[in-house]
């Protein structure tokens, strides 16, 4: 039997907006100009004005635009459809309440350079979130300025650099080695490079945690600026030697940076500040539920010890004894600004709303549920999908394609076949230390029935891999388009529409 998706319907064939454009169509109306118009030449001379009549910019009606975006939106999977188990990404429910409060005109309409005495509510909101994040991480210095996790990382390692430069003076130049585990996110080494550090890689053990012997060996080589590690690490396992890691690096004269991507496993249960960590970044779009929005905006607060706080980006948002909130740029040791204004404020509003919704015990319950879900899923798949490490995971379950690869079915195929079962695939081929890695993070936002359905799909795919491997290798079969030839796309990149571009549905 073969029931194919009907692909001729307009909703499945929405063109690019440029291909829909019709000369003279408009979808807007402005009020009439209410001042006497001057000759435009007297305002901006012709030589400085555009003379291309905005060639090829689309001309469409309002309903054209609404249909255009509504149609293409249906080609996306989303959290609101179901489990979106991208490991490391924490795709939890995005509450509509958070959207509502971020859109209150008193927040959304506020200009960042408005007088501080007329922006007290916004400054207070930032201050409250800083306090909550300091409590959650156990690290009192907080800057909400970084725009995303990668920028929070860059900020964090720059604090380390500033600290070392001040502590060691000239000798700081001999201390430029940043230790990073082989399992780390690619942003870690990239951020370290921006702070002028060179990277040495720490091996992982067969248990999936940091190899302490190797760490000690690297530290004994000298020149250690610090370590950047993730905890739970990127295979979802808690680094049980965390205090020893911190002691070893501190003993070698370096500082400890923790990538907070996996804080959803720790909130309310354990605090990086209590483990010996000096600086951490958080991802408000992961742990604190602000929407991922198809790839952003994020918000990557940086939290640090009191000792490092003087290096945080300026301006800092502080409270006077009188209760008044203000912007303080008077920190001569600051690394400087990392972003214009104060960060992604709208994301901060949403994160504080999330914290208020869950409250003290609720935040911990969310952590418990996230870990329980991952552990349950890992348990149910054990035996079917190969588990690379014996240890208990935290909020993620990590697998390898080893069993299925015997039949020629690899991680990519399993991921694509999951799409046919109605699921978004897990993170694949990350971390690099696991062959054919599948990193599954269900989050707390799914119930047992959905987890069981996901497990059932994985077990079915395992069976298909044995009985009909081509079915899996050619997946997905249920989508508008099949697997794309990405190699060809990179060889001859077409990165924008032009009038000579081939229309949809025609072959390259």
């Amino acid at each position, binding site marked *: 039997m073969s029931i194919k998706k009907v692909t001729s319907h307009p909703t499945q064939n929405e063109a690019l907006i440029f291909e829909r454009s019709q000369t003279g169509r408009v979808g807007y109306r402005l009020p009439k100009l209410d001042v006497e118009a001057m000759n435009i030449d007297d*305002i901006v001379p012709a030589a400085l004005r555009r003379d291309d009549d905005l060639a090829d910019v689309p001309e469409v009606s309002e309903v054209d*635009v609404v249909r255009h975006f509504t149609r293409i939106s249906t080609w996306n999977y989303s959290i609101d459809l179901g489990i979106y188990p*991208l490991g490391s990404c924490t795709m939890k429910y995005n509450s509509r309440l958070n959207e509502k409060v971020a859109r209150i005109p008193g927040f959304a309409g*506020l200009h960042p350079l408005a007088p501080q005495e007329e922006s007290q*509510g916004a400054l207070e909101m930032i201050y409250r979130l800083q306090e909550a994040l300091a409590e959650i991480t156990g690290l009192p210095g907080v800057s909400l300025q970084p725009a*995303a996790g990668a920028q929070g990382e860059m900020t964090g390692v720059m604090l380390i650099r500033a600290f070392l430069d001040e502590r060691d003076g000239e000798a700081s130049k001999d201390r430029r080695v940043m230790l990073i585990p082989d399992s780390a996110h690619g942003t870690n080494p990239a951020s370290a490079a921006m702070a002028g550090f060179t990277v040495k890689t720490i091996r992982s053990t067969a248990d999936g945690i940091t190899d302490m012997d190797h760490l000690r060996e690297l530290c004994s080589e000298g020149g250690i600026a610090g370590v950047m590690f993730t905890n739970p690490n990127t295979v979802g396992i808690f680094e049980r030697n965390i205090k020893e890691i911190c002691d070893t690096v501190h003993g070698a004269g370096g500082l400890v940076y923790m990538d907070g991507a996996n804080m959803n496993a720790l909130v309310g249960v354990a605090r990086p500040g209590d483990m010996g960590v000096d600086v951490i970044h958080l991802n408000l779009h992961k742990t604190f539920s602000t929407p991922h929005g198809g790839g*952003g905006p994020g918000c990557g607060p940086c939290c640090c010890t009191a000792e490092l706080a003087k290096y945080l*980006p300026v301006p800092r948002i502080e409270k006077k004894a009188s209760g008044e909130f203000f912007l303080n740029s008077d920190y001569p040791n600051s690394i400087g600004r990392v972003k214009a204004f104060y960060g992604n404020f709208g994301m901060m509003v949403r994160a504080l709303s999330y914290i208020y919704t869950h409250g003290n015990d609720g935040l911990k319950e969310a952590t418990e549920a996230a870990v329980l879900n991952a552990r349950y899923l890992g348990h149910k798949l054990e035996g079917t999908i190969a588990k690379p490490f014996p240890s208990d995971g935290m909020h993620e379950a990590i697998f390898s394609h080893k069993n299925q690869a015997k039949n020629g079915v690899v991680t990519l195929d399993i991921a694509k076949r999951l799409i046919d079962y109605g699921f978004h695939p897990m993170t694949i081929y990350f971390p690099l230390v696991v062959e054919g890695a599948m990193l599954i993070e269900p989050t707390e936002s799914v119930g*047992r029935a959905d987890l069981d359905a996901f497990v059932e799909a994985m077990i079915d795919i395992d069976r298909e891999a044995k009985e009909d491997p081509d079915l899996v290798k050619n997946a997905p079969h249920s989508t508008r388009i099949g697997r794309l030839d990405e190699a060809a796309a990179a060889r001859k990149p077409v990165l924008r529409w032009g009038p000579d571009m081939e229309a949809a549905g025609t072959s390259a």
Partner: protein
Amino acid sequence: MLKEIGLNTAEELFRSIPEDIRLKRSLNVTEPLAESEIIAAFEGMASRNTATVKPSFLGAGVYSHFSPTIVDHLIQRSEFFTSYTPYQPEISQGTLQYIFEFQTLVAQLTGMEVANASMYDGSTAMAEAYLMAQRVTRRDKVIVAASVHPEYREVARTYTQHGDLEIVTANFDEATGTLSDLSALDEKTAAVVVQSPNFFGCIEDLSSLAKKAHAVGALLVVVVTEAISFGLLKSPGACDADIVVGEGQSWGIPASFGGPHVGFFATRDKFIRQMPGRLCGVAYDKNGNRGFTLTLSTREQHIRREKATSNICTNQGLIALAATIYMEAMGKKGLQEVAEQNAQKAAYAKKKIGEIEGFSAPFSAPTFNEFVVRGPKSAAEILETVRAKGVIGGLALSHYYAGHDNDILVCVTETNSREQIDELVSLFR
């Protein structure tokens, strides 16, 4: 579920965390609040942002423009705002297609050949442009105009402080308000960086700057903080710019106390492989169906790690979507008309303020929707008086530029009615 995995209590889930680093108490944050309580708490705070209910003439990198209703409506579709980076193109074509449209629109408006999927904001896009110019030219000096947004320059300094890039700040002409001093320009220069309209609202002579930069093999980097200006002003690409970066907040994005906004990054085809950030391109499946996918990722951190072109991971997804919807809803005619209205209203205000006894326009270069006026006494004092009457009259330039005590940066957009402008004029008087 606990039983099924062989545990009795939730505490046991955390056995791998040593006892001595577990938190043994409740977090010191609020009890859980009800939805209505949360709304009340946030409305209470928002009500203390009294600036939002006053007529305002603030610009300086964040502009007030009308955003069609459908912009905020469409971005709230679950499929857009609760999805993530399109790692699985077969079920992310909606996101990929709008990124491709965003890249195209940015390229069209900037007059460049190619644009990326967006950056965090204008300031970080500019910092990345410095680094790219250094990679492309293998030279280690950047000349930046003092008339570039001061906060952008601070961010670029932070980004580059540990590299080997020298930054030279070039003065502006106190008579014209535009970049004048290119004495540092030489064959070691990677790029000349200039904003247009610049921080004072003045339109720079980009074509002539491009010629001078190119004559010594340097790139011209153009920064644009007011994206509405593209509807009227000659595009940087037409002026021969090599990299165009800027802030897209004007494309229908709320001010939101400074973020989230959206940075854009455009350049020439020949530099594609040196670009930072995500790129979306056309790809075909085996049946010849056209689709879109993230491409050229060998530049990026998840592949190249410390040798990547940038540490940026994702783009500014949802805000780039809002900007795309704005540009398409306004369309060719709308983008032109709104730009013209901004120029006309600002010209009207500039003329009226200039007629006030004791007021003058210190810079002679043409302006778009922002301009500097020099008052008879301290700008802070004038703005305080105006604010007492319920109007945010602009920005005291001394906030960023020492020695400009009497100068006020005034921005007028299509959202400022003639009535508001006339009120401002009478309050200045």
